[in-house]
């Protein structure tokens, strides 16, 4: 995201470190691609890779143009990015350049020989966050504001609901989507609709919700990065996506030769692909110790594999009576 600076860093980086290109459909400001970019930039800073990137390739022809341009002229070792909305183009290019490692965020299957896919599998932290929310709510109503009902969001929201059900069988989880990745103002209005409908805990899958929570003085749960500092008194915790393990897997492929695998589980919590930020117990109303204990206990079960969070990618209904379902 850092203008030219990234480019210059990469030049200073170790000459024979693999050259990895980040190719993103949305601007880096969008949290999803932002997370991928952050991990790659971090790896570059550590000299693991040389890193270049281009973002905001919203149409298939722009995406394909960039990929071919890179593959043709820049001799990269690997290309990482998101193939949503351009599956065809990306896979076509990958097929034309079998020696380059392609690792793309995608809902599709891997493609021989060199096209691996990954995704942000945050159902584990989402489940834990749900438990937390279920325990925190007194009105038994929880509000969730999401971008749009795409699988990655759905399974997070559904896991969240499942978690809430565990700690609070009577909880009602209300879900609304703003149908755009941005427009935090709309997200805030949606959150306020939740509040007016009685919600007293909010899950901020999108920007703007935390502002509403702050004004209404209720706890909220952040997303993608630790958002605690945005509202120290109100952000109970955040779901965090760590792309680094995935990146390392890609780097490994560069040295051991390209494969076509599903890198999905590198986003799972037990491999450190995702986590729930440290609980912030000094939020309004605090967090009861037994709830903290319950969450940490479940976290441990997930880490040792004794609990596997169910994955459900169906679109959650606007209002789910957790108990009822």
């Amino acid at each position: 995201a850092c203008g030219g600076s990234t480019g210059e860093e990469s030049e200073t980086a170790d000459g024979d470190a693999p050259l990895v290109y980040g190719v993103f459909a949305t601007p880096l400001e969008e949290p999803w691609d932002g997370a991928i970019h952050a991990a790659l930039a971090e790896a570059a800073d550590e000299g693991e890779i040389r890193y270049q990137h281009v973002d905001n390739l919203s149409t298939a022809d722009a995406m394909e143009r960039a990929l071919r341009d890179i593959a043709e002229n820049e001799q990269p070792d690997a290309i990482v990015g998101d193939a949503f909305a351009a599956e065809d183009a990306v896979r076509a290019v990958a097929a034309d350049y079998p020696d380059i490692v392609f690792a793309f965020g995608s809902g599709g299957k891997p493609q021989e020989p060199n096209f691996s896919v990954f995704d942000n599998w945050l159902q584990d932290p989402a489940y834990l966050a749900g438990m937390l929310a279920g325990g925190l709510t007194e009105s038994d109503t929880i509000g969730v504001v999401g971008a749009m009902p795409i699988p990655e969001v759905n399974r997070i929201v559904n896991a969240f609901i499942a978690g809430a059900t565990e700690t609070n069988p009577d909880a009602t989880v209300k879900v609304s989507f703003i149908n755009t990745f941005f427009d935090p103002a709309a997200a805030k209005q949606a959150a306020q609709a939740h509040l007016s409908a009685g919600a007293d805990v909010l899950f901020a899958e999108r920007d703007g919700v935390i502002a509403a929570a702050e004004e209404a003085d209720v706890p909220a749960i952040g997303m993608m990065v630790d958002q605690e500092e945005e509202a120290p008194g109100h952000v109970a915790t955040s779901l965090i996506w760590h792309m680094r393990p995935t990146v390392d897997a890609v780097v490994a492929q560069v040295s051991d030769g390209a494969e076509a695998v599903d890198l999905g589980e590198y986003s799972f919590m037990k491999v450190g692909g995702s986590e729930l930020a440290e609980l912030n117990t000094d939020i309004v109303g605090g967090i009861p110790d037994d709830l903290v204990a319950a969450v940490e206990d479940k976290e441990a079960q997930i880490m040792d594999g004794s609990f596997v969070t169910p994955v459900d990618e169906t679109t959650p209904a606007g209002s789910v009576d957790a108990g009822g379902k």
Partner: protein
Amino acid sequence: MSINLLALVGATLTIATPLVWAGIGELVVERSGVLHLGIEGVMYAGAFVGFVAALESGSPWVGLGAAVVGGMVCGALMALLTVGLGLNQHVSGIGLTLLLIAVCEFSARLRYAGERPRLAEKFSTLTDANPVVAQYGLTYVAFLALAPAAWWVLRSTGAGFRLRAVGESFEAADVAGISVRWTRTWALVVGSALMAVGGAFLTLAVLGSFTIDIINGRGWVCVALVIFARWRVWPVVGGALVFAATDALQLQLAITSAFADVPRELMLALPYLAVIAALAVWGRAVCYPATYLRPYERG
């Protein structure tokens, strides 16, 4: 569950606020015969400049001031293009929007690479009594001061008459010794300042943070509202309220189980369809300001 009426009204007022500010700004400009499609970009610039200034200074008031100044500069730029050089208003406006958004996003990228700073202090609602009156100061000003003032100025001051004269007939204004160029320039400067405030409302009051795409088409809605209102102040306000009300309603319906399986997109489309319907019902024969879209040239 039932709809919470108070909350609905409160949300309506908040959602309508930026539309009222920017809409009245657009109205002032269009009354002088200039179509200001730069509005989307000016709102965006207002939101960004206001945010940056507030962040640096730590005071939202400084941010507001900066937004106003920024808006005036944008207006002057639009005036240079459409009044000074007499360029096509469609292209100038769209071009200005593209330019301003690009410049803001570019600067945002350079300044805040990655992280999302928040304002230490943002405008807060004047009271928390109940959702209806728990509004930001800018909302109160928009409805209780700006709109009446705009209405009065246009209706019964020389400034208003000059604005309309220029919008209706170059020859008449000219012969009456009214400078078409200056009038239009001032209209653009003042109007754009109002638009910028509308944009800054989102960053300085509603969110206290800036993200790209923050205006997300609200400017285009304002253009539509102004034409829909036939360049009259109160209908602009009314239109903004209709739009905002449907939007707020949609947000509440989306989370009531009764409407769970109505397609969300249908509800999201409601505000636009509402305005079109309103126009279709009592929007016959819009007559534009006579000098609309025409550059002014003198022998």
